[in-house]
């Protein structure tokens, strides 16, 4: 079946089975690397993308459910030479070890900042809850988000 899909402001026609999770469409059909397979179960957030502005697990989002909603991946925020403020904050904080979780982290955090540009520390921590990092980069991830949200460190609510 063919579907029209708007990803990172570009419209694509993709040919795939209707149930195919967005993750495999983005990676396999559109050649994007940002969303990662971590569990395929909606438990780790490595595959997080924005769908209609909200952070969703692309591994559990069948192609047929996307409809008109816009998809955004980390590629859509900025590239190596054109990072958006959040990506830049991750770079400034060197907020990555293996980095496998990071694209998902950025996409989940971006969804929060889009909706609430100045979240409290407690709001950041609870919003990021669904995403796992095994390397233990959490403190830097929090710092990077805080940088953009302009929350002072240790301002835990």
């Amino acid at each position, binding site marked *: 079946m063919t579907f029209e899909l708007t990803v990172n402001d570009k419209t694509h026609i993709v040919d795939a089975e*209707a*149930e*195919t*999770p967005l993750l495999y469409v983005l990676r396999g059909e559109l050649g994007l690397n940002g969303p990662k397979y971590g569990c*395929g*179960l*909606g*438990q780790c957030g490595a595959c997080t993308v924005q*769908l209609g502005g*909200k*952070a*969703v*697990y692309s*591994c*559990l*989002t*069948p*192609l*047929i*459910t996307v*409809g008109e909603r816009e998809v955004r991946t980390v590629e859509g925020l900025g590239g190596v030479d054109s990072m958006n403020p959040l990506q830049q904050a991750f770079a400034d904080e060197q907020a990555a070890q293996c980095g496998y979780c990071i694209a998902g982290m950025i996409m989940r955090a971006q969804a929060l900042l889009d909706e609430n540009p100045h979240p409290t520390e*407690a709001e950041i921590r609870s919003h990021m809850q*669904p995403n796992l990092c095994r390397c233990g980069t959490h403190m830097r991830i929090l710092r990077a988000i805080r940088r953009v949200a302009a929350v002072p460190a240790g301002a835990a609510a």
Partner: protein
Amino acid sequence: MLAAMAAGVLALGLTWRPTISAIDRPQAGSFPAAQVNQGAILAKLGDCAVCHTATGGRALAGGRPLATPFGTLFASNITPDAETGIGNWSYEAFRRAMRDGVSRTGSHLYPALPYDHYTHVTEGDLQAIYAYLMTRRPVHAPKPDNKLIFPLGFRPLLAGWKFLYLRHGDVPYDSGQSARYNRGAYLAEGLGHCGGCHTPRNLMGAEVASKAYAGGIAEGWRAPPLNAENPAARKWTADSLYTFLRTGVSPDHSAAGGPMGPVVESLSSVPEEEVRALSVYFAAKMGKAAPAKAEAEPVDRPAEAVAAFPEGARIFAGACAGCHGPGAPMMSQGRPALGLSTDLTDSEPTSAIQAVLQGIEPPVEGRGPKMPAFAPSLTDGQVAAVLGYVRTRYTHKPAWNHLEHDVRQARKEGGQP
């Protein structure tokens, strides 16, 4: 409703209750350790900490909001802090609150504190709970003000409510039943206040006695019937109930979702015998006319379901089958098939909708069945389509009507995105 309340007030002609004088906080050492330990178990069975602890707050220090049809109530601080908690409450004051729903200063308490159940708790058990609470570390935590619809903030009205609905007295002992059954009855009807969720409530928020355990609503989830109408595909036995109450999942039924999670968490650490007693009691209640067979093969009708809900079938394949489909890891690890899920066989789609929207968190030590929330990714129509599909595929029950409308409603009530 107001008229009824006013009538109650007039009929009683007396709403005023005296203040019970403040005491100095009793010395922790004045309570025997055995009594405190017993109180700790009873407090778990009564789920005290579940309501009286705010997210991220200190245990029992209150502040947790409780949304009711009548407004938002905040749980009080029940640590023995003299100023903001119950540190200056005598046992008499405590007992009056638990039995009559009246605070130390004489004001009426909202029945969010289930004194209509706690009133059945024995004197010895109340004393033990008091001993337990008074030996906690005091936490200074003032309670936020309730936000209720006018005129319900006027507490004397509650006297009318009590006149109509509060019934004192012991839970009757059924000598035709085992001691275990009777222990279960005592726990369920009293401290456990199981009817608080599993019995439907009337317009005044009171449990409808004639429909005990016919199923109710809790925080937007449906608490299934625990009587002969229980819709489980496989019959609940005392053993399977025990496993469920202890761990939050029964391989023959389903996983605990929503407000049942914290209940399971409490029950996971009380003595086994208490949970066995509850299990025997409810197995008997549900067993009276149980339609289900103990070993019923789970229904699975993919062809019918695809035909009826083609879109739902595709959503299921991409969003659900990785856990619930054949060959999925969850299935090879012995988790219940959807064909056994009470949420799907229930006459109301409420809990099924909530499980999809909010997901399920493992109740005990963060370990166990974990389902992600689909509220951000699936539209109301898509949730309805996939639930229509699973209802058809995994049950023989008639399709739920107005599913999409119910999903929209549930999303609104649950404050889901």
